[in-house]
């Protein structure tokens, strides 16, 4: 289990912070959003429920667009388009 931040395609990135607990998922999400360009899409995978509420508000506060929000097998998947 280690944090993974990968470029998965042209303008698409994936952040995998499964196994991590507060505050790691939200801080890595924040930093990933800072690193990518406007219009790029970031997929975040995490399994710490307490982080989700903060990440969702962070997306709203930043004016980003939430393209996908699903939970499967205890893991949470968010797809965010950076504003």
């Amino acid at each position: 289990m280690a944090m993974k931040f990968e470029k998965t395609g042209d303008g698409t990135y994936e952040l995998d912070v499964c196994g991590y607990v507060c505050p790691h998922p939200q801080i890595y999400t924040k930093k990933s959003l800072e690193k990518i360009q406007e219009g790029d899409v970031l997929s975040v995978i995490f399994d710490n429920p307490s982080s989700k509420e903060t990440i969702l508000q962070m997306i709203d506060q930043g004016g980003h667009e939430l393209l996908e929000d699903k939970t499967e097998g205890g893991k949470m998947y968010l797809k965010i388009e950076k504003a």
Partner: protein
Amino acid sequence: MENVEKRNQFWAFLITGVLILISFLYYSANVYYIYLIVYIWFGYAYGMMLQYGRFCFASASRDLFAAGVPRMAVGIMIALIFFSVVEAILETSHLSTFHPAPFGIHMLFSGVIFGVGMVLSGGCASGSLYKVGEGNMTSLIAVIFGLCLGQAAFVDIGGVFNNFMPQSWVDKAMQTQAAIASASGVHIPITSWFDHYLVGYVWNQPQFTIAKLMSGGNPTGIHFFIGNAFINAILPAILLLCVIYYFYSRKIFIKKKKKALKKQGLPETTGLKDEFEGMWAMITASSRTSIMGVLVGLTAGLHILTMAAMQKKFGVTNFGTLLKRMGHFEDVSLKGTVFDPGYWYITSQEGQLGAWIFEKFGWNMHDNMFFGYVNGLPELWRNPALWMSLGIVFGAMVMARLQNEFKFKVPSPELLMWGFSGGLLMGMGSRPSLGCNIGAFFIRAAGGDPNGWVYGIGMVFGAFLGVKFFNWFTERKMAKEMESF
């Protein structure tokens, strides 16, 4: 998926059923244990609410500084406002168990240490407990090694550490020891650094609430409402909400508002009404946190009322008296008491658990003031406040199971390090202040004790330092990950 849901529901009902059974067993053993049962179920209620609302004091300042998210800071202010009103009603009705703590600069330093710790470990004292209930074993490391064992060792260490104590504290502690011995025949144990600090310094600091200051010592309803609730809790909470709105929410809200006005072909001007609308939008942005803020505040008040009723029913002011009536003299301290706050509290009982464990390995924990004279060291199953902490863990576990969010997570070596170091700092930061984010900040700020805010300021500053360190650490890791881009 359906099987997972059914299994989670089964566990939720099983845990609740076992707690009901335990409650019946206690009641059938002795009616005095109702006192302890009340703690179990208030703990259970807190646990459910904390988990549902993701209610963590660490998150309040950490997410604000690190991610610009005000959700939790807003939730805490709401809880504080509601709790302070209920507390004022209870004080007016002489049904409160609240007591202020010795006031001083020690609260600030203690808060800073605790604040750093809660950011590193990923949860405050109460937040760590509810996260244990979610299956987060990093939080368990913080609780066991920091809040339990670390805290117990912290108050019992003497030897070379005693040399760092100011002579005035040592002299005062010795004078107090002699005075108590001559007055009651009890020789108080002053062996550790903490004993000197407690008896030689803390006990000599003034204890007051705003209501007492306003009234000259005899507060009535008006003083409790105006002084304790309004001046010490509601006003600062509203001011903080305004500050948080201005720095963290206003810009994006006004931007969105102007965009909407432009779309409608209206002039892009905003006024005071829009600012109120923006404040309300911030408060309701995370409805589950804000609603839980209201419920946590009301429940904390109801808890005080229930404990006061229990004390009146049995004619006692501390559970230690009931333990003695049941013949458990070995559980109580030299003055016949055990730790029994009478309201929501977290860390002292966890220190007792740590001390209980150390004693099983032969470390005498009765030879200090904290356990030996003030709080006692009851057997685990007769420790009322410890049952409240267990109640929080199990209440959170039930809620996490019902929401299919329970996941047993074994920490990696990295998280182990964060949990351990943060937990130790939280343990160290909750003892000099005689409380943590709940006992030292939340309860005191709502009860009219300015100490709560002194601790709160320290806690927020500590969280700021913790976030700085965390940012530096995570930035390095991100840079490493991005090398291949």
